[in-house]
Structures are given as C-alpha cells and as structure tokens.
C-alpha cells in the first residue's frame, strides 16, 4: 500500500475515534448508561413527565444510523483486506460480530417498546460491544499500517 493511502487511512481512524467519542457522549446525554435510564428513555416515566417513544419515532431516529453503521463497518472492515489479517478465521468472526452487534444496537428499542424490558440490557451491551469492535478494528489497522 502506498504511503499516501496509509496516511489517509490513519486520519480516517482518527476521525473514527472522534465519532465514537461523540457517540458515547451523545448516548450518555440523551439516554444514559443504566438499565433504568434506557427503559425510561423508550417507555417513558409518568412521574417525571417523560413521554414514551413510538415505534415510528424510534424508526426515524435509527433510519440514518442504518446507513451509517453499515457504511462505517464496511469501510473499516474492507481496509482489513489490504492487511495481513486478510481471510483469517478471526477476521471472518470479526466481520460477522461487527454487523450483528450493529443490528442489535439499532433494533433492540423495538423489543423494549413491545414490553420485553430485558432488551434494555442488550441495547447497552450491543452499544458497547459495537464500539469496542470498531476500536479493535481501528487498532488492527493502525498496527498493520505502522508496523507491518
């Protein structure tokens, strides 16, 4: 890979870390990281005058994220093809896990709205696993570009 392309990818990784930082801050600000706060955000709280979200409202929120999660995952993962991690068994598992956790993170609110409150845990779990995977992929790319 040419030096200029490596440089461009390194900057892309820096932007990715910024995006993750902003995502964590936004999640903390709007939803919160506790089981109760996730439930409260989606099914509301009459005592605190927090209205429940509708399915359509949630769909409007996740609509841009469907495209963005897919694009971000695809761009990051496809860079792995240009490294020594290409076609390794772990890379295949990594690809499946990244896309699956992204889907879980986006669609668990619909289960919460339909009374399956346990999915608040899965929402939190998938959010952090997805971000951790993005950081891990970024680290693999950074290491490959810098040392290989």
């Amino acid at each position, binding site marked *: 890979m*040419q*030096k*200029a*392309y490596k*440089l*461009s990818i390194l*900057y*892309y990784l*820096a*932007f*990715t870390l*910024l*995006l993750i930082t*902003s*995502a964590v*801050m*936004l999640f903390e*600000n*709007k939803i919160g990281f506790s089981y109760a706060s996730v439930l409260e955000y989606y099914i509301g709280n009459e005592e605190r005058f927090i209205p429940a979200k509708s399915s359509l409202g949630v769909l409007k929120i996740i609509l841009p994220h469907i495209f*963005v999660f897919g*694009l*971000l995952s695809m*761009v990051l993962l496809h860079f792995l093809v240009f490294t020594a991690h290409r076609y390794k068994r772990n890379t295949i598992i990594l690809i499946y896990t990244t896309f699956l956790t992204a889907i879980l993170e986006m669609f668990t609110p619909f289960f919460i709205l339909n009374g399956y409150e346990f999915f608040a845990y899965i929402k939190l779990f998938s959010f952090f696993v997805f971000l951790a995977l993005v950081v891990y992929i970024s680290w693999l790319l950074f290491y490959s570009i810098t040392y290989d």
Partner: protein
Amino acid sequence: MKFTLINNLQKDSAMSLILKGFLVFILLYLISNILVMNSGFGISIEDISTTLFGNEEEYIDPITEATFLEFWHTEIFFIMMILLTLNAIFIRVAKRSRIILTNILMLSAVSSLISLPLAYYISDFFVNIYVLAFFTWHFIAIYVIFYSFWKLNAKSV
C-alpha cells in the same frame, strides 16, 4: 474504490467522467455547507460564540448540550466520509505535494472538530481555532477538488 486500481485514469473515459461528477458534488456540498453554517450555527467568531453561549443582551439562549452533541456527531461523520473519498481521488491523480496537502487538509479538519467541544465545554478561546481550522480545511478541500479536476483532464495521470 476501484479507481485506485486503474493504471491510467485519463484513458478510462468513463471512470474519469464519474470521478469528475463526484468532485462537482463534493464542491457543491462544501459551498452549501458554508452557506448553511452561515445562516445557522455561524461562521464568524461572534456568531458561533452567540450560538454556543447565547447572548443576554439580545435574549438569545445558548444551544442545548443535546443539540450541540448531535450537531458535532453529524459533522464528524460527514467530514470523515467526504475527506476520505476526496483524498482517495487526490492521492490517485497527484504526484507531488500530495503528502503535505493531505496532512494539512486532515489536520485542519481534525483540529476544527476537536476545537468545537473544547470551545463548548472548556473555553471560548477555542472558537478562534475552530473558525481558522474550518476555513483552512474548506479552502484546501476546494483547491484539492480543482487540482484533481484539472489532473483528470490532463493527458496522463
């Protein structure tokens, strides 16, 4: 991004045309972004300070934290995707100065994005850095677009 694998972009008239069309769209986005920012968030130090911190004399409330974080989050995503694709074309067509221009373009864009929360949470001094970095990366991106356009029209790339 298959265009990175084609040996001579100028000879591939279809790919060259596609990339030129894409460059026009990025140029339109950048110009529109400046106009929209001017009417909303602001592009001058005074306007951005008013948006972020409000203005008691003019009864303008500061932007809420949630709105600010949404704005910042969206900006990061758009800028990273635009600069990745634009820079991929530029690297493919430019021979000299591509490393230095890539560094200036990316560093100024990253600086603008980092200085924004620093201005909101820490000190209004960072608004100055944001404005400087914002215009730097926009103007360099516009230069890169015109340079790439010119090189795609040249006899050989």
